[in-house]
C-alpha cells in the first residue's frame, strides 16, 4: 500500500506553508484519513510549534533517515486526533542530512503502515530540502500571496513541479497542482491595491483550489499551537476546511472574497 503524498511548497518564504501544512493535515485527519505531516525544513524546525507538539519531540526525521530511531519512535501522535502524526525536522543537522534514498524509504514505510496521506512541509527556496520535499509528490499545494515576488516564485515552482519530480522523470502522469492563495485582503483588492484572485489565476494560468483571507485568527492559532482549521469561527479556518474538501474532490464555492459587510452594531459603535 502506498500513501498519497502532498507537498506544500511556494518558493518564497513567509507565505504560509507551515500554517497550510498543519491545517491541511488536520483537515484530512478530520475527514477520517490516517495522516502524517513531515517538516522538511532541516535546521529550522517550526511545524511542531504550529501543531502544538514542540515539547514532545524526542526523535526527528533525520534520526529516522540515518537509522538512529525507528519511524514509530519518531512519529508524534497528535493530541487531538489519533489518526494524525507529526514527524519533526531536526534542529541540529546541516541541510545535507537528508538523502533522496532516505526520504524514499521513510515514505514507503509510511505507506506500509497504512497511512492514507503524507503531507510534506517544504522549506522555502529551491535548494535540496525543497527539492526532496516535492520529488516524490502526487499532489502539490503551491501557496501564494497576492504580491509580486510570491507570484513570480510560485510560477518558478510550478515549472519545477512539472520537470524535477519523480512523476515527471518517469512520465507517470503529472503531479496534481493546487494553487492556494493566502493572506487575501478583499478590502484592498476592492480598491485596486492588491492583486485579485482572477489576476493571480490569469498570470499563472491555473485556477485556485482555495483562498484564505488574511485574518488575525491565524496568528492567534499559531500562538496557541492549534492549527487554524480548528477555529470554526474564523473565516481563515472555514476557508481551510473548504480547501481540504476540494482537494478530496468535493465541489465547494469560494467564500470570503468580498468585503465583509458591517453589521448594524458595528456601524453604530465601530469595530
Amino acid at each position, binding site marked *: 500500500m502506498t500513501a498519497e503524498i502532498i507537498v506544500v511548497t511556494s518558493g518564497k518564504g513567509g507565505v504560509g506553508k507551515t500554517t497550510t501544512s498543519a491545517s491541511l493535515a488536520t483537515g484530512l485527519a478530520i475527514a477520517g484519513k490516517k495522516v502524517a505531516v513531515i517538516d522538511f525544513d532541516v535546521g529550522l524546525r517550526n511545524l511542531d510549534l504550529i501543531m502544538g507538539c514542540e515539547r514532545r519531540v524526542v526523535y526527528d526525521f533525520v534520526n529516522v533517515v540515518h537509522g538512529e530511531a525507528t519511524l514509530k519512535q519518531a512519529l508524534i501522535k497528535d493530541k487531538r486526533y489519533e489518526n494524525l502524526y507529526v514527524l519533526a525536522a531536526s534542529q541540529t543537522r546541516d541541510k545535507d542530512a537528508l538523502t533522496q534514498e532516505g526520504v524514499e524509504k521513510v515514505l514507503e514505510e509510511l505507506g506500509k503502515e497504512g497511512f492514507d496521506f503524507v503531507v510534506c512541509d517544504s522549506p522555502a527556496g529551491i535548494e535540496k530540502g525543497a527539492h526532496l520535499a516535492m520529488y516524490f509528490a502526487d499532489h502539490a499545494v503551491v501557496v501564494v500571496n497576492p504580491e*509580486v515576488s510570491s507570484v*513570480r516564485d510560485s*510560477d518558478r515552482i510550478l515549472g519545477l513541479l512539472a520537470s524535477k519530480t519523480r512523476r515527471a522523470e518517469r512520465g507517470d502522469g503529472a503531479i496534481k497542482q493546487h494553487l492556494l492563495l493566502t493572506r487575501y485582503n478583499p478590502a484592498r483588492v476592492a480598491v485596486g491595491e492588491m492583486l485579485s484572485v482572477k*489576476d493571480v489565476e490569469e498570470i499563472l494560468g491555473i485556477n485556485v483550489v482555495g483562498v484564505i483571507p488574511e485574518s488575525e485568527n491565524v496568528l492567534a492559532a499559531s500562538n496557541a499551537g492549534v492549527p487554524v482549521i480548528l477555529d470554526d469561527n474564523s473565516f481563515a479556518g472555514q476557508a481551510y476546511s473548504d480547501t481540504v474538501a476540494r482537494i478530496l474532490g468535493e465541489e465547494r464555492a469560494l467564500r470570503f472574497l468580498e468585503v465583509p459587510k458591517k453589521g448594524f452594531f458595528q456601524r453604530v459603535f465601530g469595530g
Partner: protein
Amino acid sequence: MGILDFLKRKPEPTAAVAKERLRIIVAQERSTRGAPDYLPLLRNELLEVIKKYVHVDLEAININVERDSGHEILELSVALPDHAEAKPG
C-alpha cells in the same frame, strides 16, 4: 482642482501595475525555462561581438533552443537597426 476632487481622489490602482509587470516577466521566464544555463552569457558575449560592427541593443538579440526528435537547434536572430551603419573599423 476643487476640494471635492481632492476628497474623491482614489489611490492609484497599483494592482494593475503589478499584474502587467508579472504578466511580462512570467512569460519571459517561461520561455527560457529548461534552456541551458549558458544562454544568457552567450547572449551577452554575442552582443559584445556584434556591437563591434553595428549598434544593437540586448533586446535585439533573440536566442532560442528548440528540441526536436534527437537533436537540438540553437536559433539566433539579431534585429538590425533600420539604417545599420557599419562602425569604422
